[in-house]
């Protein structure tokens, strides 16, 4: 290895990356999303997907769901750094594989094809609660809800049935049973 000329240390060993879902409750005020996203980009954390909307209209609280990857140390930092932001009320964090949590993403799929292909497309989507939102002689717009990878697969599978456009959301999460996020 070449001798370093830098006064900064060399990078250490990289740890194993885990995928986590971070849920953040924030005051719904101007710039709050920029603060959260800026914290991620400024400190070099990843964002795989992001979903945000107001969930408590009276108190003006928004719920942000972020899917991210990082070493356990980085995930811990993300939580603690988020917790320091003034408009942040609470932060929850889950491993992607956590059985106690439901994760879902939604996708809108536009299929332009003849009737038989369109019907087969709807059939393939059956596992993912397909809803027909729009229908014409030539096309159909489907809504499905599934996990990220399932939607990835569907997008591949539906190509040959005339998939021309996809719009998808970030993941949202909810605990199973009567418990709520603390």
């Amino acid at each position, binding site marked *: 290895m070449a001798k370093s000329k830098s006064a900064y240390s060399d990078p250490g060993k990289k740890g194993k990356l885990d995928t986590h879902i971070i849920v953040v409750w924030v005051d719904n005020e101007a710039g709050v999303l920029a*603060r959260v996203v800026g914290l991620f980009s400024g400190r070099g954390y990843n964002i795989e997907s992001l979903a945000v909307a107001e969930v408590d209209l009276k108190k003006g609280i928004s719920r942000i769901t972020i899917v991210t990857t990082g070493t356990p140390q980085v995930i811990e930092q993300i939580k603690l750094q988020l917790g320091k932001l003034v*408009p942040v009320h609470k932060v929850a964090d889950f491993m992607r594989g956590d059985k106690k949590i439901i994760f879902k993403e939604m996708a809108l799929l536009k299929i332009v094809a003849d009737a038989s292909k369109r019907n087969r497309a709807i059939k393939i989507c059956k596992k993912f609660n397909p809803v027909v939102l729009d229908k014409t002689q030539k096309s159909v717009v489907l809504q499905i809800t599934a996990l990220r990878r399932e939607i990835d697969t569907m997008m591949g599978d539906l190509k040959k049935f005339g998939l021309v456009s996809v719009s998808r959301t970030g993941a949202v999460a909810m605990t199973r049973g009567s418990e709520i996020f603390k």
Partner: protein
Amino acid sequence: MSKLYTGAEIVFKCMEDQKVEFIFGYPGGAVLPIYDELKNHESIKHILARHEQGAGHAAEGYARSCGKAGVVLVTSGPGATNVVTALTDAYMDSIPLVCISGQVPTHLIGTDAFQECDTTGITRPCTKHNWLVKDVKDLAKTIHKAFEVATTGRPGPVLVDIPKDIQFQKTKYTNKKKKKELNGKTNNRFSQKDIEKLVEMMGKAKQPIFYTGGGVINSGPKASQQLRELVSISGFPITSTLQGLGSFPGDDNQFLGMLGMHGTYEANNAMHDCDLMINIGARFDDRITGKIDEFSPKSKKVHIDIDPSSINKNVKVDLPIVGDVSDVISSLIKTIKKNKPNFLKSNNENTSKWWEQIAKWRSVNSLNFINSDKTIKPQYAIQRLYELTKNKDTFITTEVGQHQMWAAQHYKFNKPNRWMTSGGLGTMGYGLPAAVGVQIAHPDKLVVDIAGEASVLMTMQEMSTAVQYNLPIKIFILNNEYMGMVRQWQELLHEKNYSESYTAALPDFVKLAEAYGCVGIRAKTPDELDQKIQEMINVKKPVIFDCLVDKEENCFPMIPSGKPHNQMLLGPNDQKENRITGKGKTLV
């Protein structure tokens, strides 16, 4: 009906209620209504800087030396962008600043209006929080909250951006509400159990060390008093970061000096070999830890910090204690006194070998240098400055570079809040305006900016501020005509290719001083140094002291890049003995 106030009046009413005495600022179009209101508020004095960065650093110097938030007032656009360096500096070193900036009127925001910039967008990553006030009814609440955010928890800078139309609009004024918790962001999250565990660990330690930082200073003067008591009743050695200097007496026998890249041999070796490290209010900065994989491999680590995100950020610790340093130390002392009446005695037995080892490291005398009777060595200049000012309650600021490290090594501080230096951001040009702010807070004290000739030229215009307000600050320039630290790294790391680190056309600093209306003094030889320093101290005006020093002196000891604490480069004395050859030098 209660009285209606304009936005500009509300700004001042808030500051009066926050007991603000000084504002550091610079006027401009978008803050004119606030400047217009200034005349009606006698308790608040405005200090006119010569550049908004200078105003920001002056406010930092003020805040650091007296423990209150520094207040900055700037205009929109360039006013706001110029203050960004000072805000970032304050953010890195945890200094409470409240910056109020003007903004173009609300209906023009987003139209690329004259002197418009996205101030809250630009300053978001360099403030604890910022606000754009779009409704005059929110103004008072926002400013009070700004002070609260800046000064509570881990302190830091905040910014309130006020559009010009909001400054004119009228509303009722509401005083600050009683303290409410900020979204549950409480300071102290430790339990008595944590404290007892720490006492237990301290009782067992054979090679302990306290590693203290700026958090002790930020916790208030009481924390420094308590730290002294803790160190004395434990009998443990203590080292300090650059920012923590002054929280423990620099001339005390238990003090090992500063640690880190240019820390002492004994401090760094003790950090490396210790079996218990108690970090109080420091943050395991990369200039401190060196190579992180080999950082203090044998020790149990305890981290006391007010900021939970500091814990386990760079170094994994065994016992985190989240809380205000002062509160933690006071519980610690109480518990020790209650549970372990013979603490000091048994510790002294446990650590006697450790102290013997420390004495061996000390005998290396790592801050030593080869003095000269022909040219002034920079270290000698600082030693003389220290000897001639130590009996006064002297406040020292610095710029950034070799002179800063020499000041940290050779000037011994006995009290907190006497040492103002840009550590985290490393801002050249910090010291002169910071000295202005310090002198404002302490008009009768001796304030010296230990400077380099390159750094000081970055904010030299603030001499004009010092002259305007009769601030007798002393700018003590160690003039080697080089950007010394850059030159040192180029010598050691880049085969002496001194690319652009020599300043070929320096001003005559004595004449420059005279041009500003202050006093210029030049010292060329070691013989005349004492007399010239004395002259500088005696002058009741601002002074620029041009101390011509050895041009090629390097700052040692030094931890070479990517190396752990126990592989330090020592100064020329030691190099002669140990013959660090070409091979050793490439380690740097």
